[in-house]
């Protein structure tokens, strides 16, 4: 059994969280609230690190006055706590949403659309041909503008089956990923902490 205080704390936190599988209990709630508090604190520290390194240092050490703008916009986010001027917070939100939308749209057009089509139509093997057929079939399943009838109706039906295979694979991968984490935690409790397993 380990004599390290850190391992004891980590082991107790692990057991407390796993105990929720049985039912809601005070030990789980203690671990849960500590987890949320420490996560939020860590996020604030990381955020402060971003502000300091990206804006405050260039402003203070190199005199780059342009960084005053995002700092002021960031501070304006807190205007929402003051009733009369709460609307001012819309400006930094608009800037953030604009940046987010721009990045998302260019990623969607280039990465999720053009590059995916490009990768799909570059056929070099039987598997590539199957991939092309499956992608077309899956896309045809999302075609709702007109009811597809006759022999071609088999294409969206195939697409439906392909999508089910994709969902099944995603489910299997998710379960196995979580199982790997669970095995890791059990190994930690029985091995590193209690020392009953090598």
């Amino acid at each position: 059994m380990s004599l390290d205080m850190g391992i004891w704390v980590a082991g107790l936190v692990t057991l407390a969280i796993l105990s929720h599988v049985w039912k809601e209990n005070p030990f789980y709630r203690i671990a849960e609230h500590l987890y949320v508090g420490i996560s939020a604190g860590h996020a604030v520290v990381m955020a402060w690190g971003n502000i300091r390194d990206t804006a405050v240092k260039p402003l203070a050490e190199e005199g780059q006055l342009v960084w005053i703008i995002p700092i002021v916009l960031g501070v304006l986010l807190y205007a929402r706590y003051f009733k009369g001027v709460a609307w001012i917070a819309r400006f930094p939100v608009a800037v953030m949403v604009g940046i987010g939308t721009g990045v998302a749209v260019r990623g969607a057009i280039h990465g999720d659309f053009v590059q995916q089509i490009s990768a799909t139509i570059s056929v070099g093997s039987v598997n590539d041909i199957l991939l092309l057929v499956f992608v077309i079939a899956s896309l045809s399943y999302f075609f709702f503008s007109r009811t597809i009838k006759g022999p071609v109706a088999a294409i969206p039906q195939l697409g439906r089956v392909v999508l089910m295979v994709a969902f099944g694979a995603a489910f299997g991968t998710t379960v196995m990923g979580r199982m790997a984490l669970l095995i890791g935690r059990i190994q930690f409790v029985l091995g590193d902490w209690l020392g009953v397993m090598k």
Partner: protein
Amino acid sequence: MKTTLPVAIMTVIALIIILDFFVADAPSVQWIKQSGLVLRSWGIVISAFAMGLGAVNLLRRHVVTISRRESGAFYSVLLVGSMLIMIVVGIGAGQDSPVYDFLFSNILSPASATMYASIAFYIVTAAYRSFSAKSLESWVLLLTAVVVMLGKAPIGAAISGFFPVAADWIQNIPNTAGMRAIMMGAALGVVSNAVKMFLGLDRTYLGLRD
């Protein structure tokens, strides 16, 4: 001004960032490239302030619970206390300090891994309740999940060499095809939603309902 100007600002910024990616690398359009770069770094700073906003909201919510001595006030004390310790130590002494490292390595990391691990139980019980193999599609989903799980576990390879090979093929061909189709559909959705926002038809991000 309170509504139209933010929509206009959002549209101009989004268009600059989109153009920045698609315009050629010519000197005449360098200002777009530069503006896109500057705006994206501004985004990091403003998002960091927004993170602080979330922390303030969390603190307000739990400080109210503590001050009113509502049920669960003890847990709120733990939350607020651990959060403040992390912030004070992290900003004051740095992330390399022993206290910060202790809390991060012995509470945050194991709690995070265990939270994700415990989801395994809920996924399996949810699947047991909802997977009813009554049609071809549900059979396909069920069999694929079983083959992929066996293919990724040592027991699958011990039973038959078929499982790892089949799992790999399923992952690489039909799974890629299905996910690719979903990704393309989602990309079109992202673009159409952006157009709605540019036209001022979707202003929910400003806290407006219509």
